[in-house]
C-alpha cells in the first residue's frame, strides 16, 4: 500500500481496501459498450481519488473516455438504458463511503442532483426547450426537497441571482431559447447547484461558449466552489481551462490514465509524451504569433482494437527509445515519477527528463 493523500486530490489507488478515506474514490473503473463492430472499451481501468473542496481536471482528446467516466460516476450509463445493448460497467466508485456501482439504482438516483450534480457541454441542448428555466430549476429542487412550488421558485430566483443573471425574478420565467449562451450555462450551473451537491462534475462547461464568456463562467465556477466547498471534476480538452481551475490533473488516452498529478507538476514537469503533445498543441498568448502549434500526429486510437503495448505508441515520436520493442508489446503501468505524480511510459525517468528539458520545454 502506498501513501494515501489527505490533502490532495490524487493518490495511488488502494485496492482491497473497503473503506476509502477519500470523499470520492474511483477504483479500476471499466465502462465497455457492446456494438456490432465489437466491444468498445471507452474506459478501461481508471482509478483516482478526490477530496472535498478540491478540483480534478480530466484532460484528453475526443473519445479518450472523459465523458464516459463522468456519466459512469453519475450512474447515467445504467439509468435509461433500454433494449438489449447495455453498457458493461465494473470497478468501484466510492462516494462518501458508499459504493455506487453495487448500490440500489434507486438509491443512486436519489443521490443524483442532491449529492452529485453535473453541468453539460451545450446548455442549449441540455435544457428542455419546452419548459422555462424556472420550471426546470424548481423541478430539480423539488425532487430532493419536500417544499411547495412557491418556496422552490424563490430558491430558483435566489440561485439565478447567485450565478449572476440580471433581473432573476423576471428571467426565471424565460425559456432557454430566450437566453444567450453564457446565460444558459449560468442557468445550468444554478440548476446543478440548487441542492448544494458535494460533488460537481462539469463536462466541458465552456466548450460551447464564446471565449469572452468562457472566462466569466470559469470565474463563476471557482467562486462557487469556494462558497459551496464541493469537490469538482472538470472535464475538458482545453488545458487552459484546467490550468485555471484544477488542483490536480488526470490525462486520459484511449480510455486509460496515462499521467496524473498536481496541476503544477503536470504543467511544468510532464512525464508522458502525450502530455507533451497536448502542451505543444495549446495556443498561448505568450508565444510568438509566427510560431506554429505542434499537433499530436495521427488520430485517436480505435477503442475496439487498442494498439498493443502502449496505446500511444503509433503516434509517439519516442516509441523506439525504450529497448526491445517493449512499447509495442507491453502495456506500461502507472509508476510514480515524483511526489503524487504518476505516468505510464516505458522510457526511464532519466530519458524522459532529458527529452523534456532538451527537446520539448524549449519549444513551449
Amino acid at each position, binding site marked *: 500500500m502506498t501513501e494515501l493523500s489527505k490533502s490532495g486530490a490524487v493518490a495511488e489507488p488502494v485496492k482491497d481496501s473497503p473503506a476509502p478515506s477519500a470523499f470520492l474514490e474511483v477504483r479500476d473503473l471499466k465502462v465497455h459498450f457492446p456494438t456490432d463492430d465489437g466491444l468498445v472499451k471507452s474506459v478501461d481501468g481508471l482509478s483516482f481519488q478526490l477530496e472535498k473542496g478540491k478540483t480534478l481536471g480530466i484532460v484528453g482528446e475526443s473519445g479518450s473516455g472523459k465523458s464516459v467516466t463522468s456519466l459512469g460516476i453519475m450512474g*447515467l450509463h445504467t439509468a435509461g438504458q*433500454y433494449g438489449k445493448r447495455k453498457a458493461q460497467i465494473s470497478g468501484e466508485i466510492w462516494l462518501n463511503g458508499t459504493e455506487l456501482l453495487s448500490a440500489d439504482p434507486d438509491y443512486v438516483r436519489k443521490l443524483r442532483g442532491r449529492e452529485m450534480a453535473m453541468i453539460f457541454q451545450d446548455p442549449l441542448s441540455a435544457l428542455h426547450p*419546452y419548459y422555462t428555466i424556472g420550471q426546470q430549476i424548481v423541478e430539480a429542487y423539488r425532487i430532493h426537497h419536500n417544499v411547495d412550488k412557491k418556496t422552490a421558485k424563490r430558491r430558483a430566483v435566489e440561485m439565478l441571482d447567485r450565478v449572476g443573471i440580471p433581473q432573476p425574478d423576471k428571467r426565471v420565467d424565460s425559456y432557454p431559447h430566450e437566453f444567450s449562451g453564457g446565460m444558459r450555462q449560468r442557468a445550468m450551473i444554478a440548476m446543478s447547484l440548487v441542492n448544494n451537491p458535494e460533488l460537481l462534475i462539469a463536462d466541458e462547461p465552456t466548450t460551447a461558449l464564446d471565449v469572452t464568456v468562457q472566462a466569466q463562467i470559469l470565474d463563476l465556477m471557482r467562486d462557487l466552489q469556494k462558497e459551496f466547498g464541493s469537490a469538482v471534476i472538470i472535464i475538458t480538452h482545453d488545458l487552459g481551462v484546467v490550468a485555471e481551475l484544477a488542483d490536480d490533473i488526470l490525462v486520459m488516452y484511449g480510455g486509460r490514465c496515462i499521467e496524473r498529478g498536481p496541476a503544477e507538476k503536470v504543467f511544468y514537469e510532464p512525464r508522458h509524451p502525450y502530455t507533451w503533445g497536448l502542451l505543444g498543441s495549446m495556443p498561448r498568448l505568450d508565444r510568438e504569433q509566427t510560431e506554429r502549434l505542434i499537433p499530436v500526429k495521427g488520430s485517436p486510437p480505435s477503442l475496439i482494437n487498442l494498439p498493443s503495448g502502449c496505446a500511444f505508441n503509433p503516434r509517439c515520436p519516442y516509441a523506439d527509445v525504450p529497448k526491445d520493442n517493449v512499447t509495442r508489446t507491453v502495456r506500461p503501468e502507472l509508476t510514480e515519477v515524483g511526489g503524487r505524480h504518476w505516468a505510464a511510459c516505458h522510457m526511464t525517468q532519466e530519458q524522459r527528463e532529458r527529452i523534456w528539458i532538451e527537446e520539448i520545454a524549449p519549444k513551449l
Partner: protein
Amino acid sequence: MLAYLIRRLFAAAVMLVVIVMVVFGIFFLVPKWAGVDIASSFVGKQADPAAVEAVRQKLGLSDPIYSQVWEFFKGIFAGRTYSGGGDVTHCAAPCFGYSFRSEQAVWPVLTDRFPVTLGLALGAAVLWLVFGVAAGVLSALKRGTIWDRGAMVVALSGVSLPIYFTGMLSLAIFTFGLHWINAQYVPLDQSVSGWFGGMIMPWITLAFLYAAMYARITRATMLEILGEDYIRTARAKGLKEQVVIGKHAMRSTMTPILTMLGMDLGALIGGAILTESTFNLPGLGRAVLDAIKNQDLPIILGVTLITSLAVLIANLVVDVLYAVIDPRVRLS
C-alpha cells in the same frame, strides 16, 4: 400568443375563400372548357330540354363566372332563390348549393351525414392515439427485443392491410360468423348502446390502420428524443425514470404526433369513404360516393367544401396547440 392566434385565424379565412374559388373553378369552369353541358349533368342525362334550360337559368350558368361565384358565396350567408323555367326553388342559408337531381338542398344532407362521420373519426382517433402511442413508446423503450419486433410486425401489417380487407374480415367473423356484433348503424339519439355497438367495429378497423402509423412515428420520435441531451439532464437531476419518460420525453414526442393527428382528423372528417362503405355507415363518405355514382355535382361540391373546412379547422387547432406545447413557436 393572441397576435399569433389572430394571424392564424386570418390566414385560415383567406385560405377558405381561395378554396371555395378553386372548388368552384373545378366544378363549373373545367366542364365548360371541356365542352360538357353542366346544366344537363345537374339534371341528369335523360332529362328533357326544358328542364335543362330551367336549371341553366336557375344557376345563372350563362352569367359570367365571377357573378356565379358571388351568387354561391352570397348563398352561403344569405340563402338563395333559384328561379327559372316557371318555378322557384328556395334554398335557405347556409346554402351550399341545391341538388336538382335529388331535389334537395345540399346543406341538410351535410348536416345529416356529418355527425356520423365525426363520431367515427373521433372514436377511432381516441383508440389509435391510446394504442398507437402506447405501442410506440413501449417498443422504443424495449428496442431490439421481442416486444419491439412483435409490435412493429403488427404495425406493419396494420399499415399494409387495406380497410376493406380488415373491415370485411371483422364483419365476416364477428357479425356473420359468431353473431357477436350487430353491425347496424343506430343514431346516437335513438340508442346509445346501439350506436356504440354499430360503431365499435368501424372504430377498431379504422383505428388499426392509423394506430399502426402512429406507433411507428411514436417509436421513431421517442428513440430520437431519448438520445437528447435534455433527457440526460433530466436523469442527472435525479428524476424517476417514469417522470423522465412520461413528462420530459413525452412532451417532445407529442409534437409530431399532434401534427399528424391534425391532418388525419381533418381528412377523415371529410369522409372515411372506405370505412363508411364497408360498414354501410350513412356518413359524408357514403354521401359523396353515392353522389359520384349519380353524378350529383352539388353534393360533391358541398362535401369537398366541408372537407377543406375540416382540414383547415383541424390544422388551425393543431397550430394553436403547437404554440401551447412548444414555446419557441410563439416567437415567430
